[in-house]
């Protein structure tokens, strides 16, 4: 048979064998349905789900304002409460603040917030917000896959929950300690990509210039 026909036939066959469209869809629609449901019941505290917050498009580039409520010696109670049920008890004007006022980095280091429109409390829960290390916290490692991940990602298991939602910057030296595989994989890929481009980009530019200025006759062949 003609090879073009064979290939076209195999292509058509492979199209038939592809998974249905629903397999390809992300669970994003569930996220929105879930969020709308939660918003409508007022499950969240008012100050975290104020309308118009437009969470995935935080254009405000101002850094976190420690200001008069700095996370320092005067607020040491915050630090010693990281294993307690209410990690935020005793913070002044707590009701008037949003999570990212203090947890600035955590608001921008994950695709759930930045791209998928989630808010902190959809995973970290309502008041009182306990530390993830607290025994009864829904985000405790022993149950987070079932209590948190599976709300949107149906069927999530312990392995699935080990995906780092708050992903460290893979380029940082600190990541070599906290997530070495990500650090080394990232830098290996950067070395590959950077090395390839570092050699061939200047090479291509010089090559183009060489042909451009090599006389009236079209070059690139045997001559000169």
């Amino acid at each position, binding site marked *: 048979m003609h090879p073009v026909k064979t290939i076209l036939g195999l292509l058509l066959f492979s199209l038939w064998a592809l998974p249905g469209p629903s397999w390809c869809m992300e669970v994003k629609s569930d996220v929105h349905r879930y969020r709308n449901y939660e918003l409508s019941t007022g499950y969240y505290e008012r100050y975290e789900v104020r309308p118009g917050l437009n969470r995935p498009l935080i254009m405000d580039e101002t850094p976190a304002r420690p200001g008069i409520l700095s996370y320092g010696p005067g607020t040491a109670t915050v630090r010693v409460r990281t294993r307690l049920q209410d990690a935020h008890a005793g913070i002044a004007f707590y009701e008037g603040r949003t999570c990212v006022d203090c947890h600035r980095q955590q608001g921008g280091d994950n695709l759930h917030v930045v791209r998928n429109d989630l808010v902190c409390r959809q995973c970290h829960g309502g008041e009182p917000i306990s530390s993830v290390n607290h025994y009864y916290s829904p985000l405790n490692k022993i149950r987070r896959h079932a209590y948190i991940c599976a709300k949107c*990602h149906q069927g999530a298991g312990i392995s699935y929950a080990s995906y*780092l939602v708050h992903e460290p910057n893979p380029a940082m030296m600190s990541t070599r300690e906290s997530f070495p595989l990500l650090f080394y994989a*990232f830098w290996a890929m950067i070395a*590959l*990509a950077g090395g390839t481009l570092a050699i061939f980009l200047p090479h*291509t530019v010089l*090559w*183009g210039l060489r042909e451009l200025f090599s006389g009236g006759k079209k070059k690139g*062949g045997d001559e000169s």
Partner: protein
Amino acid sequence: MMIRRFTPVQRLFHLSLILTFMMQTATGFGRLYIETAWGKWLAGLFGGYTGCLAVHKWVGILMLVLFLLHIVYAVVQIARGKMRGQDSLLPRLSDIGEFLRHTAWIFGLARQPRFDRWTWWEKFDYWAVFWGMVILGSTGLILFDSLVSSRVIMGWGINVALWVHRVEAILAILHVVLIHFFVAHLRRSHFPMDKAMFEGGVEVDAAKEHRPAWIERLKAGGDLEGHVISAVPTAMRAVYFVFGYAVVVIGALLVIYALINAPRVTW
């Protein structure tokens, strides 16, 4: 007089690679840049953030199928003895020598190497697709259904897979748009477009200039007449030209907007 450089099947593989690669670039950038106005517009062409992923996964599977088909095709061609000697795309030691001589020629230190059928950069581009397919395809399969893959690997492997997928994709896009498109379209000796991959052949005179060793080898083997193909109709040449430039312009715009918007994305 035109002599054959690529068979219809090889051109079909290249055409499908163009179409799938551009689709993957557009849908991938649509998601990567979803925080920016440009990314939203781009994603909107494919049904938004989720639509982009659906298209990206379908086309990714298609690419892998085509890749496997190509391997089968290449093995069959090798078995039929069509890829012997200088007709083979396998790298040789002489390619390194040609690369060095070619670089020396750029600086005016040597004469151009006498290229045979495949130049070193054509072999590099060919095998770059293999390396890209393996890295992007394997990480893409991990990301295809994270719930399933997390049963095989640990969930944090998905963080790693996404970053590897991302960096390799950016490398592939930059290489294709900045280097491959430049070499095929904008070099003076091939400006405005090297249509060999679309028309299937090249003019003998041009081939004598650019690939003298190939023509001499064909002549010595008495094979030159066997490689002559009929001229391509003008209408088809116009179609190839418009299509080729459409892809170049789209690719260049995608890269330009991606570079402009890169600082506005949460990486």
